[in-house]
């Protein structure tokens, strides 16, 4: 059989991924009109649509064994109601329950009742694929640790996942309530972060002026490619000399600023912050010394650009541009003269200090590290936002990339916890398909 596209435009299949094609398919997904089709056909379509989303990487016979016709639901009990009534009021009268005194204003007056739930029907049919959510790989995807269920499966198979502190390599492990699963932080950052820009290949210089950068359409979501094209177009080998000189000048400026931040007496840096700044100064020095040389040891322009970008972003956040530095020096002098009497000025510097500490922390937490398999500093990948939700049956701690499967997903009045993109009708038909009375 011909292999179909995973994210096709022709045949709408919504998948468990954060892909832009998937987003488009999700946007145009509609409940098909069913009026003129047999019941079997309706169920077949519903089944194939829903199975394309819910665990399409799981074989059908496996899912059929997992399927359960018992759909879990929960009701919330109001303790105030339970304290005041023992339930006998519902059997009062002729068995239809106690009613309040007839009220001309409110004809639908009811007796005492448990008011802790929404007064809506319980959407049981949206729970048809609830057993799938127990699977380890799908739970990892739901906890936003991977950009697709298949990627989550790969994380498990590659040994990056532990359950209750022990390595688990079976993606089909069914989580029990209370199980804690953890994914290696680097894997999560790889799965959810922006991909590393591809290594630039050396191309022979073209005599004709480049037009691609202007031609590239932004709507194609190839902006990164366009940017890299643009930078490449800039870094033609013709003006390498000038570029290197420019780099050197910028680096020197940056180094001076970093050194100044280190030397400033009024700025109380923590030991770690000092260390990181010193390291940066050291890096710049070594790079600058290498730029003077020729041959293999000379740093590449891309390396220089990286260093410059990282440092400038770091130092710009410190708000230590030359004019600001002068202001700061003046303030410090004023403070010395006034003996700290000027509270307003003092508060300002303190704020700045806090900001500085915050930004230093941020840079230490999210450093530029070329050894990582994702783009650094880490940024969330594109098209992630519309898929970012965490269902309530999971409790996630994103800092350690761990999550606890609290309980099985349940349906409540008005809400169903299984994240499914399909309407009630489709889910109901799919559920009916698996009841095996076709």
């Amino acid at each position, binding site marked *: 059989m011909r292999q179909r596209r995973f994210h096709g435009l022709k045949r709408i299949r919504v998948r468990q991924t954060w892909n832009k*094609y998937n987003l488009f398919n999700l946007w145009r997904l509609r409940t098909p009109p069913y009026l003129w089709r047999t019941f079997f056909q309706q169920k077949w379509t519903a089944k194939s649509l829903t199975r394309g989303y819910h665990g399409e990487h799981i074989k059908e016979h496996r899912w059929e064994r997992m399927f359960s016709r018992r759909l879990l639901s929960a009701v919330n009990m109001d303790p105030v109601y339970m304290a005041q009534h023992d339930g006998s009021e519902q059997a009062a009268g002729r068995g239809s329950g106690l009613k309040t005194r007839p009220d001309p204003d409110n004809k639908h007056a009811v007796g005492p009742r448990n008011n802790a739930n929404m007064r809506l029907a319980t959407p049981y049919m949206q729970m048809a694929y609830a057993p799938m959510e127990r699977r380890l790989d799908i739970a990892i995807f739901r906890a936003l640790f991977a950009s697709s269920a298949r990627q989550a499966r790969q994380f498990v198979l590659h040994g990056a996942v532990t359950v*209750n502190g022990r390595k688990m390599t079976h993606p089909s492990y069914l989580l029990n309530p209370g199980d804690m699963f953890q994914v290696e932080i680097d894997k*999560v950052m790889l799965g959810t972060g922006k991909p590393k820009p591809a290594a630039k290949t050396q191309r022979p210089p073209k005599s004709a002026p480049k037009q691609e950068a202007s031609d590239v359409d932004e709507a194609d979501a190839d902006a990164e490619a366009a940017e890299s094209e643009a930078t490449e177009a800039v870094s033609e080998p013709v003006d390498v000399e000038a570029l290197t000189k420019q780099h050197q000048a910028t680096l020197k400026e940056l180094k001076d600023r970093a050194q100044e931040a280190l030397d400033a007496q009024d700025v109380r840096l923590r030991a770690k912050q000092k260390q990181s700044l010193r390291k940066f100064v050291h890096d710049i020095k070594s790079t600058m010394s290498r730029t003077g040389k020729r041959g293999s040891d000379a740093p590449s322009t891309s390396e220089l650009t990286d260093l410059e970008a990282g440092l400038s972003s770091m130092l710009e956040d410190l708000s230590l541009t030359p004019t600001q530095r002068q202001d700061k020096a003046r303030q410090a002098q004023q403070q010395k003269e006034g003996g700290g009497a000027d509270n307003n000025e003092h508060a300002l510097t303190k704020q700045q200090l806090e900001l500085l500490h915050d930004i230093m922390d941020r840079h230490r937490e999210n450093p530029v590290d070329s050894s990582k398999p994702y783009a650094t500093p880490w940024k969330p990948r594109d098209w992630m936002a519309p898929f970012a939700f965490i269902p309530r049956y999971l409790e996630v701690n994103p800092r350690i990339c761990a999550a606890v499967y609290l309980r099985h997903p349940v349906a409540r009045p008005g809400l169903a916890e299984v994240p499914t993109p399909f309407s009630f009708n489709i889910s109901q038909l799919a559920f009916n398909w698996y009841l095996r009375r076709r």
Partner: protein
Amino acid sequence: MPPRIPGGGCRPQQLLTSLEAPTPSCTLPAPALALRPRQPPTASSSRPLSTTPRCSSKTESTKPPPQLTRVRRKFLDFLEHSSMLRKSKVLKEPTYLSNNVVTRSEGEVVQRDMPFPNNPYFRSQSVLSAVSRERVWSEVMEGGMPIKAVAAKYSVDVRRVTAVVRMMEIEKRWEREGKPLAYAYARSMGHLVPQHNVRAESKFEPINDLHVHSHTMQQLFVPTSESRHFTRADAARAFGEHILPPEARMRIPELVDMERKIAQGVPPPVAGAEFIAAARESEQEIAARNFERARSKEARTVRVQTDRFEFRFEKIDSEAVGPKGRSRTAVGWRYGVPLMDRRRAEVKIPTSMD
């Protein structure tokens, strides 16, 4: 018999494609929030349509450029008009498909917290923010509050409170060890997923959930006298001998006691203090029971430490094999019961990880 598609048999694939190719009227959103009407593909249009391939920069590639079909053009339009969904980095609040580009032609209301515009029953509900997790942890671990009391105070499920504390302990330990945590990832998740800050009066989730037992989903006709005081407990018994009344199945039954006291006229602060005391007592009971269980298991086990392994011997009763001798928990090989343990290609995925 349904009408058939002319020219084709009843091939489901053909049916599917004919079904799913949406008519323009139903695919395009309502004019109020509609996408900008597309310019007709004229020469003035900036986008190359069919003559110029889109990826002209990749001239070396042998792959033909994708044909700019009608669907693909729609796709590109969609990407262009939903570009705010793309930049996850700059978004500072949860942004879903439903609150940006989608309007429903059927006239349904699409709420802002619906990640799936077709499914109004699934909402992107908020999660506990980092500050809330810290606060819950400090209340339990530093303040020494009973878990049930913290759960009732912030209206957070008891199981969630324990999970938060458990994971915060790991987080703190890793911080002490200097292990790099995923701060950048956590920060952007904090922007993209709706967050909830716990406060004493605001509710996070229902905490008195009862699982709906399948025995109670049937309709029963129980003949009884009119004068009988038929309570919840009686109803539970009518559904089955083993069905417990809601009072016995609630996770925090002490809350009902507290409300009962308040209804009887006890001042709420006093009732609240008594609630906390009762919660603490019940938790200590559970802890004592668990400790006793672990102790008795330890007493039954003989540990033999060698240089490589620790052997643990436990006494078992070989006669406890159930009434038919085929109990699942029975130990050892029994006549007539197949033992699949050593069969070839038998994948044994654990059912629990302790």
